[in-house]
């Protein structure tokens, strides 16, 4: 397919869309699906057909709208209203939604798009999520999709594309924060006949589901970003390494790849040029360490996912010892808009060091739990209290756990710093328990290759266990700190180097809770084994 042909399809889609006066978008991402949004979709569609409105009113299945806690979510236009928690088993309510298309929305379920949760967001990565049908490539083309890719191939040199990404200041969204443009130019300059582009969709951090949502809601966006990257660095083969725990994301990715190949937007001779790029999905198998790039590459090769020392960096010697570009889902999803709107536009968003936006999964003890995208550098306090709507049940905020098992817990007085993906915890959470939870996780997920990580995490967990059982001693706190620092310094890969973070951050900010466990042998929150109240009744 050439650029002209693509624009023709886009034009046709837009013409079709003009005929529609009313739209009802129903989210069919995994969160809403588990609340039976597929039934809501079917019933709304049947009702519209029954009334003979299907020429002017379109009921569409779309991706994630973000406010997962209030699913199943529906949006109706031109009313510009969100509906929350529509009961899938109540034809009366759903009929009322259709009845009111031209009038006032059904008040019990309506949700204004003006609330901070929606209004304070800036959507780049998620701009199509909740707008387009993730299983229809024409929808994606209709909003300008694949035009940046074909434009690059037809009109721009490889180096020009790399320069554009460098100018954008985009940094890797997987956690490492390495400048994306720099990575691209390294792979572009590396010598080798065969080069690969890999997308890291092994989102292992518990409490994070940004990548899942993007893949489920807008898979073509990720594929296009990968293809542009492949063109820029000269890769001809790509893999998406996706968690097996995300069956819906895998399914939609595979559908998207097939559609794009059929249209000549992936595969051989893309855009009728000489550029070829084939993409395959590879399933992860539940190993957290495979988010680390060298371990991920080993896993794609069919080996045990064990990291190896760097250098050599994958940019020079990665998959099958060939130069390999490895970026995360969100990073790739940023590429198409950077190419179409320019690196300077992207660089104008965010802060001095961190450009663009960041998608956060806001979960835990917070009212508006869900997925949000905000400019870099936003204050944590705004996230929790403004977008998040605060803590449920008038309880007090205690800490935010950011960055998964490798992150830390930050208390209220430090709530004003910009930071990663987050789980909000209120005053009923016990920090020793949380630290123990994470050490149990990393201890279990440690691949066992290097000793500091394998033995260190087990020892740290053992100490925490002892403290939580009320058998700890004051000297244990010193040991925790010393051991943590040692593991951090000497572990081979990111998993081990960051594994002690939950312990060290809770020790730093919530030391009194540790002391309380040791001195009084009780857990004030009633979560630990030492407390007198049984764990089941601790919820107060």
């Amino acid at each position, binding site marked *: 397919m050439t650029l002209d042909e693509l624009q023709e399809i886009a034009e046709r889609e837009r013409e079709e869309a003009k005929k529609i006066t009313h739209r009802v978008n129903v989210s069919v991402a*995994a*969160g809403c*699906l*588990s*609340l039976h949004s597929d039934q809501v979709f079917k019933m709304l569609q049947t009702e519209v057909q029954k009334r003979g409105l299907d020429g002017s009113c379109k009921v569409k299945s779309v991706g994630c709208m973000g406010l*997962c*806690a209030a*699913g199943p979510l529906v949006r109706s236009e031109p009313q510009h209203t969100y509906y929350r928690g529509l009961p899938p088993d109540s034809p009366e309510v759903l009929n009322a939604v259709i009845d009111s298309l031209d009038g006032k929305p059904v008040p019990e379920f309506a949700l204004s798009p003006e609330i901070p949760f929606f209004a304070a967001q800036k959507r780049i990565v998620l701009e199509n999520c909740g707008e387009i049908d993730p299983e229809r490539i024409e929808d994606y083309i209709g909003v300008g999709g694949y035009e940046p890719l074909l434009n690059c191939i037809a009109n721009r040199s490889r180096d020009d594309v790399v320069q554009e990404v460098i100018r954008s200041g985009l940094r890797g969204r997987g956690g490492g924060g390495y400048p994306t443009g720099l990575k691209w130019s390294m792979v572009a300059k590396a010598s080798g006949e065969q080069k690969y582009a890999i997308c890291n969709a092994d*989102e*292992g*951090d*518990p*409490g*994070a*589901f940004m990548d*899942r*949502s993007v893949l489920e809601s807008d898979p073509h966006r990720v594929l296009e970003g990968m293809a542009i990257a492949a063109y820029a660095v000269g890769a001809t083969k790509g893999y998406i390494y996706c968690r*097996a*725990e*995300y069956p819906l994301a895998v399914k939609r990715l595979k559908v998207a790849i097939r559609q794009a190949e059929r249209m000549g937007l992936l595969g051989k001779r893309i855009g009728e040029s000489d550029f070829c790029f084939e993409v395959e999905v*590879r*399933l*992860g*198998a*539940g*190993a*957290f360490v495979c988010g680390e790039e060298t371990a991920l590459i080993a*896993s*794609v*090769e*069919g*080996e*045990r*996912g064990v990291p190896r020392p760097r250098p050599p960096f994958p940019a020079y010697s990665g998959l099958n010892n060939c130069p390999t570009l490895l970026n995360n889902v969100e990073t790739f999803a940023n590429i198409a808009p950077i190419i179409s709107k320019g690196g300077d536009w992207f660089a104008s968003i965010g802060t001095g060091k961190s450009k663009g936006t960041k998608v956060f*999964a806001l*979960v*835990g*003890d917070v009212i508006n*739990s*869900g*997925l949000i995208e905000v400019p870099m550098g936003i204050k944590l306090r705004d996230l929790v209290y403004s977008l998040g709507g605060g803590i449920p049940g008038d309880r007090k905020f205690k800490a935010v*756990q950011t960055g*998964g098992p490798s992150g830390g817990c930050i208390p209220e007085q430090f709530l004003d710093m910009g930071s990663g993906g987050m*789980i909000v*915890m209120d005053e009923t*959470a016990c920090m020793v328990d*949380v630290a123990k*939870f*994470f050490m149990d*996780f990393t201890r279990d997920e440690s*691949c066992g290759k290097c000793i500091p990580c394998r033995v260190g995490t087990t020892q740290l967990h053992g100490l925490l266990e002892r403290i939580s059982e009320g058998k700890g001693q004051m000297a244990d706190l010193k040991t925790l700190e010393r051991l943590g620092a040692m593991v951090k310094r000497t572990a081979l890969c990111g998993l081990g180097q960051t594994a002690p973070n939950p312990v060290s951050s809770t020790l730093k900010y919530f030391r009194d809770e540790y002391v309380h466990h040791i001195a009084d042998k009780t857990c004030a929150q009633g979560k630990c084994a030492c407390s007198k109240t049984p*764990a*089941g009744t*601790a*919820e107060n």
Partner: protein
Amino acid sequence: MRRHGYKASALIEVLHTVQESFGFLDDVSLRFVASSLRIPMSKVFGVATYYHFFSMKPPGEHNCVVCMGTGCYVKGAGDLMKMIEEIARVKAGETTPDGKVSIVAARCIGSCSLAPAVVFDGEVIPRAQPGAVRDQLRRWIGHDAG
């Protein structure tokens, strides 16, 4: 295996297919995979045991997955799991002796906004209530226990 051209790099993909077809990886199928892909049995076994997703034991008739991700954990998934283990009288990762129910602890299934999440036979139960979970388990196990 044919689809992947019998390449050694397809090992994990092949193991996924085997597990999908038979529910778990047994000795016979591992040996078959090893000889077809021409890789040592030790390596196949190593890979199969390294990843959490692969199971070497036959699954129960029903499957109960409790998400133990951070979001679910702070919302009480730990207590939920304790209750389930008591009802089923087995630990997470095991199957009841009568082969009725397998109890599995998952890392994170990405339904964090609907925590705590439990998955019964592939269907996600959002905001799982202890009572409802107990009833479902009793229905499954109940037949034999009386």
